[in-house]
């Protein structure tokens, strides 16, 4: 599969739960190496959108092409698609029955048929990268929230994904833990990783994002460079949202 300039192509994406329509026709393209931050009030559909990209939620209608795979095509092997996507959850979702190393090496050993020794070497490099080299044999329950989230990022990176998706990665963290996690994400962005980040960290969005997308009520209301979004918001809902966030 050629490394196309467009990593993610979303067209007319709808998602309903019963009679409630959560996504009402989204269109979005994400280019290679691009960092997109998605902001918006709670319940606007940001997380649902992100989960649709890895088929954790199945869209009601619309097309998603990610890393060249068309998710609506029945012949697409979803497991293969997911191997190439790194997903980071709000609540980390580390496997409590495994230590840090085992968490990180599980997928490479199982799916990439990597030898345990080689997988462990990669895992230790990644732990070094996220600043947790000394926690290799710790159990997840022995780590702080910030440390757990950094392990979760390392776990996702171990599969060498072509794109990373972050679903409110710092929302469940104590304020003093947020910085370490954001630092890791900033480094990833600098290294050229394509990223979609659902976040409430406006500072991070301003500093790191190539593009900020504002969602409200299941639709993208405004999208543009951080400078334009934060300094010259056009949409009244965005103006309202920013006022509330900044006045907190």
């Amino acid at each position: 599969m050629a490394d196309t300039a467009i990593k993610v192509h979303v067209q007319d994406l709808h998602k309903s739960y019963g009679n409630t329509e959560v996504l009402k026709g989204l269109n979005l393209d994400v280019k290679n190496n691009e960092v997109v931050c998605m902001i918006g009030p709670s319940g606007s559909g940001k997380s649902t959108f992100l989960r649709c990209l890895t088929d954790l939620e199945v869209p009601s209608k619309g097309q998603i092409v990610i890393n060249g795979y068309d998710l609506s095509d029945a012949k697409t092997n979803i497991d293969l698609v997911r191997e190439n996507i790194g997903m980071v959850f709000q609540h980390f979702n580390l496997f409590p029955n495994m230590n840090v190393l085992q968490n990180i090496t599980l997928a490479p050993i199982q799916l990439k048929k990597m030898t345990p020794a080689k997988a462990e070497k990669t895992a230790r490099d990644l732990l070094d990268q996220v600043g947790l080299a000394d926690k290799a044999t710790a159990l997840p329950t022995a780590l702080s929230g910030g440390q757990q989230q950094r392990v979760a990022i390392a776990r996702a990176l171990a599969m060498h994904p072509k794109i990373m998706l972050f679903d409110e990665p710092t929302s469940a963290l104590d304020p003093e833990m947020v910085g370490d996690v954001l630092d890791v994400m900033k480094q990833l962005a600098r290294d050229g990783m394509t990223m979609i980040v659902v976040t409430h960290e406006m500072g991070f969005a301003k500093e790191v994002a190539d593009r900020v997308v504002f969602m409200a009520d299941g639709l993208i209301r405004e999208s543009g460079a951080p400078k334009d979004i934060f300094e010259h918001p056009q949409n009244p809902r965005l103006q309202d949202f920013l006022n509330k966030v900044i006045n907190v």
Partner: protein
Amino acid sequence: MKKWQVAVVLCLAAIGSWFGLTAHAQAAEYTIATDTTFAPFEFQVKGGQYKGIDIDLLKAIAKKEHFTYQLKALSFNAAVQQLSANQVDGVIAGMNITPAREVTFDFSKPYYTSGVVMAVAKDSTVKNFNDLKGKTVALKTGTAGAAYGKSIQNKYGFKIKYFNDSNTMYNDVKVGNSSACFEDYPVMSYGIKNGIPLKIISKQHNAGDYGFAVKKGKNAALLKKFNAGLAAIKADGTYQKIINKYLHSKESKITGETASSRTFFGLFSQNLGTLGKGLWMTIELTVISIILATLLGLLLGVLGVMPGKIGPAISSTIIYIFRGMPLMVLAFFIYIGIPDLIGHGFKIPAFIAGMITLMLNEGAYTGAFVKGGFQAVDAGQMEAARSLGLPYWKAMRKVVMPQGIRIMIPSFINQFIITLKDTSILSVIGIVELTQTGTLIIARNFEGFKIWLMIAIIYLIIITLLTWLSNWVQRRIN
């Protein structure tokens, strides 16, 4: 091989070798069922052997007529049901020849004539049938005594309580729950001679003939041999010798027991072999059933949490059926109902039927808590595993199952203990496990309190050991 694979192979090997043994043991030409407690016609003596008029007659006849048979001791009811379900070839159990029975069975020539008597507790004020008004009468299901009692119930206005074996019926009269019982004369008189604290207060009613039965239209050859053999042993005096031996002697002469062996420890050491056999059967049933039920339960649990609708629907239905059905009904259904339905002489050995019963019932319970355990694992775990690209089954096996099983361990231990106790219910289909062993010993010596105490203690010891083992395993896992 991994540990669990070794376990599965060992388990299959055990079951396989067991089947082999059974097949070997069934080399006899005929399977003939008898009652478990109907002294002096049949009762178990020290060492687990059966003796009695029926048993000795059958043995003498078989010898004369050169046929081999395997004796199967069941409750009278089960024996009769199995004969009509073609599970056994014949029944000799002090069975009265009645027109109703002749509809489904062919009987031999009568080999004994007896009548029904009423017996009451030694200190009872009941003197005749008229005194029974408003009182309760104990009857044993399917017997001539029961038929007679039922026939005069309206006339004398008493209530009826049914039992499955004689000994429990006698005890009910002895402790005063019932005021009287109806029983065949030789049986009652033999029992009283050997220590049952009852007395006979009526003459013999409705004298009837005992016959050996086969299913109607089947086994004509066996019936012919029985008749010929009966005539032969009557002619050469063997018949009278057998009758005299049982009707004119005390039980101790036959079983070799002495009065001094009636203490708790005396009884214990005397019955050690029999109890050990029963205990071993209980353990064997428990272990095999636990393994099979756990495998079934895991399967049902996994099906229950599978995506889609079909897996969970199958799982819930199976759990609903087998958890909702009383174990005893299920046991009867499998042991007697299924062969009856299939016909063509299809038979299920009692042990196999018992094993299947426990597997289905305990497996359903296990399935329910396994499903619950998997559901208790945070949904984010499955999502995280799938997001890494792990296929569903791999995610299940590597991530969800290990966590779920840890949650389930206390439920598993509980279920193992319940399974052990539930094996006792299988005594109803004639499996001589620990509980049935107790029934049989008591049928012979009437020491209800001491023997049941012994059995209870043995169960408690085993359950304590099982609990220790489980706790040790639990500590190792955590």
